[in-house]
Structures are given as structure tokens and as C-alpha cells.
């Protein structure tokens, strides 16, 4: 299976995603330049973290206009698995592939630290190998990860079971203390209604080897490997 890792000007976790899927997971990976208009027949698209266009103006605001994005949208609407990590998540929000927007962290500071997220949904291509309610220890590294959506939207997300990851305490409760940035209902990650597009602020690709602190993030990539092998893409 092949992952397409989209490289925007200012992406800086593109190589980390590449390393995770290619050298740790053992799948194939291709970088796709943001000006390309083909996804090279990839089975899964990753929008990596970083500071596309410097995060100037607004995170993801300029990147969503990249020439590659119409292809990403087409891939997504055809049911292909798309993962947006951190800045990639912010781009998915700006592009309207996922609902809501990001505000500054309530600390008003960039925060780089390990957090715990609970897997709320296991019927997405990126969580199907997880146990329901499984708690993952993964790092965050962002200044604008304070998820916001109108209350009705949040309610709809909950009702449709689109909240895929939630910030929780060590014991697994979604407390305010466990919420690192002020996100609405501790939301750390979402999926679209088709469930094939997933975005999250934490960095699973940074948590794929114990040597660097945690391997809890690998399960997201193993999940999509299974999903693609099982041909779920067409089922969706």
C-alpha cells in the first residue's frame, strides 16, 4: 500500500510521517508536492504537520488553495482515507473537509508535550485497529489547537459519532484539566460524515517508536493499512 504525503511550503513534519509509514510501518510512501495535481495513485493521503506558508494570516488558510487540494477533495469524496495531522488538520478545516475552526490555545502559548487521547470511534480507517475507549499517549506541538465549532455543530458531531479522539486524563476521563488547549468538549480529532477523512491535533507519527518516547501512535497507520487491505475504501 502507498501513502501520499503532501508537502506544502512550510510543512515540517512531512519527513516524520514518511519515516513512520515507510521505515516503521513498512509501507510505501511518496511525497506529493503541493503544486502537483496527481496523488500518484496512492491508497491513503496524509496532510502532515508544520507551518504551511508560515501559518501567516491563519493556520491552513493559504494552503487550502494549493493546486493539489482539488485532487485531495476528489480523493476524499470518493471515499479515500485522508489523515490530517496538526497543521494538516487545520488545512482540512479551512478547506471545509471537516467542520469547525482553530483558535489560539487558551494559554496563548505554543505547547509541546505529551497528552493522552481516548479513541472514541473505531469505525474509521485510522482507528479500526484500536480498542474502543483505548487511551493513547501522544505528543502535541501547536499554538492554535483550541478547537471551536458552534454548539449546534458540536452537538451534531457528537450525535453522528464524528468525534474520534478526545483529550483525557491518565485515568481516561475527559476533564478540563486534561484539556491542553481549551478545545470544545475536549475534542482532539474528528472525522467527516463519510468517516474516511480524519483530522487530529496530536502527532501520531511522532509516537511510533519507543526510542522517541511512545509507540502509541502507530496504531493509526496500522489501522489504515488493514482498511486498505480489506478494501474498506470501496465499502465506504
Amino acid at each position, binding site marked *: 500500500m502507498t501513502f501520499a504525503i503532501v508537502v506544502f511550503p512550510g510543512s515540517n513534519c512531512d519527513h516524520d510521517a514518511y519515516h513512520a509509514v515507510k521505515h516503521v510501518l513498512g509501507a510505501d510512501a511518496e511525497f506529493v508536492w503541493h503544486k502537483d495535481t496527481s496523488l500518484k495513485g496512492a491508497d491513503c493521503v496524509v496532510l502532515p504537520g508544520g507551518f504551511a506558508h508560515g501559518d501567516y494570516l491563519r493556520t491552513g488558510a493559504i494552503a487550502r*488553495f494549493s493546486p493539489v487540494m482539488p485532487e485531495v477533495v476528489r480523493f476524499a469524496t470518493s471515499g479515500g482515507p485522508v489523515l490530517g495531522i496538526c497543521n494538516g488538520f487545520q488545512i482540512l478545516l479551512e478547506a471545509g473537509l471537516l467542520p469547525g475552526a482553530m*483558535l489560539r490555545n487558551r494559554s496563548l502559548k505554543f505547547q509541546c508535550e505529551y497528552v493522552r487521547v481516548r479513541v472514541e470511534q473505531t469505525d474509521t480507517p485510522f482507528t479500526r485497529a484500536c480498542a474502543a475507549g483505548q487511551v493513547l499517549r501522544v505528543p502535541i506541538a501547536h499554538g492554535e489547537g483550541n478547537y*471551536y465549532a458552534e454548539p449546534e455543530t458540536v452537538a451534531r458531531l457528537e450525535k453522528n459519532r464524528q468525534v474520534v479522539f478526545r483529550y483525557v486524563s491518565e485515568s481516561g476521563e475527559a476533564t478540563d484539566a486534561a484539556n491542553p488547549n481549551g478545545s470544545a468538549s475536549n475534542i482532539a480529532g474528528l472525522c467527516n460524515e463519510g468517516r474516511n477523512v480524519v483530522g487530529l491535533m496530536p502527532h501520531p507519527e511522532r509516537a511510533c517508536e519507543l526510542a522517541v518516547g511512545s509507540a502509541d501512535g502507530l496504531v493509526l497507520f496500522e489501522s489504515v493499512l488493514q482498511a486498505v487491505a480489506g478494501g474498506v475504501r470501496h465499502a465506504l
Partner: protein
Amino acid sequence: MRARVFVTLKPSVFDPQGTTVAEALHTLGYPSVSDVRQGKYFEFEVASASAAEVRRIAAEVSDKLLANPVIETYRIEVVDPARV
């Protein structure tokens, strides 16, 4: 002609920056200041002689790029040298 665009968070959206500024101002001894909202301010030149045209373009680029409708609203001012 010069256009000005003011982008602010919708009233319904909690503004962590504004809140922090307000708190800071209170500790600095300005109790009379309240309800601080922080936004973005853009100024740019539009090569056109018609104020209406400038306003149209400013609105277009605000909708497309400068503001995020999910959380923000904007206001436009056109500085018409003829009128200044």
C-alpha cells in the same frame, strides 16, 4: 485606492487573546476598560478608481481569504482620496 478590512471574532466566539488583554489591563490599573476584543487589521492598495469596485474586491478577498466565516466577521472601509 486604499482598502481597510477589520476582521474580528464573532461575538459568540470566546476570544482568549482579548480576555487576556482585559485581565492584563486590570492588573495595570485600568478597571474602567472591559469587553476587549482582538482582531486583525488589513490595509491594502487596489488599483481601481471606483470606490464601489474597490469595496467589491475587498469583500471578495475577505470572504475568500482574509476572514474565516466559521469564527470571524469583517468590516470594510474604503479610503477614497477624492473624498479626503
